[in-house]
């Protein structure tokens, strides 16, 4: 069984590993929604069930997962103004390919080194110390001959911080729930609307915060919604007659939230 046939049963995806890879690269499965840890766990289960370790496959898997993790972390750091940086599927595939080729190259080089070493098995060198009378005397440098600045410089170099990953692009602090609440209330005043309308053109973080604001409105009894199928359109409207506007409806938000998560 090859890595490609590794069967996965994940929250957002069920099927073989190579299909997942393809869908991720085509952005048909959102890398941000994919729990890579689940993939790793599934792979470990698979290894355990198999009982032996195919190094070739394991290395390929590790390289691919590491590359996916890196892609994912880059996606997470993308801000609104960097939208043009969005990674095209082909580009992502090229990057994965480059990583796999690099890993393969050095794996082959490693095999070559292994052969060289094997060819040298049985070749020994003399390790005996020099006869005492031939050993060189190591002279300590003269007093005061060393420059103390060398020490200060070394400490200065050790104080150097590695470049920080800039978090300025992350839009978390920029989207306030109150802001999105106001937008939703505005839309509600005009009647029913779909969730997609409310977040058209918005970035991921705004979408998430808007959803949170919608839950808040629901909780307060200001809004109600319908969603016919998972990932389907969410129709938002003012609560139908009978609902108590402005009061808390504690039990109500659970089924709604579950429906959304599905």
């Amino acid at each position, binding site marked *: 069984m090859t890595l490609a046939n590794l069967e996965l049963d994940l929250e957002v995806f069920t099927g073989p590993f190579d299909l997942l890879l393809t869908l991720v*690269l085509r952005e048909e499965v959102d890398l941000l929604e994919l729990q890579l840890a689940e993939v790793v766990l599934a792979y470990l289960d698979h290894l355990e069930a198999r009982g032996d370790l195919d190094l070739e496959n394991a290395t390929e898997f*590790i390289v691919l997962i590491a590359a996916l993790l890196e892609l994912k972390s880059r996606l997470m750091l993308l801000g609104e103004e960097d939208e043009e940086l969005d990674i095209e599927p082909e580009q992502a595939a*090229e990057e994965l390919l480059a990583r796999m080729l690099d890993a393969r190259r*050095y794996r082959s080089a490693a095999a070559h080194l292994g052969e*060289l*070493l094997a060819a*040298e098995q049985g*070749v020994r*060198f003399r390790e005996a110390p020099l006869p005492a009378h031939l050993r060189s005397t190591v002279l300590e440098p003269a007093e005061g001959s060393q420059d103390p600045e060398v020490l200060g410089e070394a400490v200065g170099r050790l104080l150097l911080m590695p*470049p920080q990953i800039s978090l300025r692009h992350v839009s978390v602090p920029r989207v306030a729930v109150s802001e999105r609440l106001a937008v939703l209330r505005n839309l509600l005043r005009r009647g029913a609307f779909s969730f997609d309308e409310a977040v058209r053109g918005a970035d991921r973080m705004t979408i998430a915060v808007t959803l949170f604001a919608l839950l808040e409105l629901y909780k307060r009894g200001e809004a109600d919604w319908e969603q016919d199928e998972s990932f389907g359109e969410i129709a938002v409207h003012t609560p139908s007659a009978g609902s108590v506007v402005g009061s808390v409806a504690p039990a109500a938000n659970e089924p709604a939230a579950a429906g959304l998560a599905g």
Partner: protein
Amino acid sequence: MSGVSEATESTAPTDDTAELPGLARTIEALLFLSTDPLSAAELAEATEAGEGAVATALALLGELHAPDRSGIVLRELGGGYTFATDPSSEDAARRLFSRPRVSTLTPAQAETLAIVAYLQPVSRPEIARIRGVSADSAVATLLDRGVIEEAGHSQFGAVQYRTTTQFLKLFGLRSLQELPDVARWEPTPEEQAELRDRLLKAGEARAS
């Protein structure tokens, strides 16, 4: 042990008149004493002889210390000359010294060493990026065995590594130039296309 019967009757290479020239004898002694390979220039300086004379002496020693003529073989390694044993004496050496010369490398160590050998100087994060997993323990072992060493800091402050003369010695290399071009293991364009297809089109193939 083979060769016992030959030894009892043969006395072939003995001739009292076969003297080795003084310079070759001296160089032979220096190579015997030194644990590191010695370059022709170092030998010339130590013997106060010309480089040409040293080259002639080395050629003569190379003949005398060929694998079938001596148990001590002249090798050109790590930019210099050194004496080593021939693998044919390994069984006896193992019985006498009761430990193999080198343990083999684990795949992780071999991969890490290959990356250092080809990309030196290279830092641990770079090695980890290529391998997809941390290289800490492999680097520690390779440092411990003296085949790699520190080589300053990268611009981001990470310690960098390079291979040592000991690496060349153990792997029988005259210099790093003897390592084959890494492009040699480049997958063919067809193989690359196949990989690319696997990444982008595997789903399609499966769906159809």
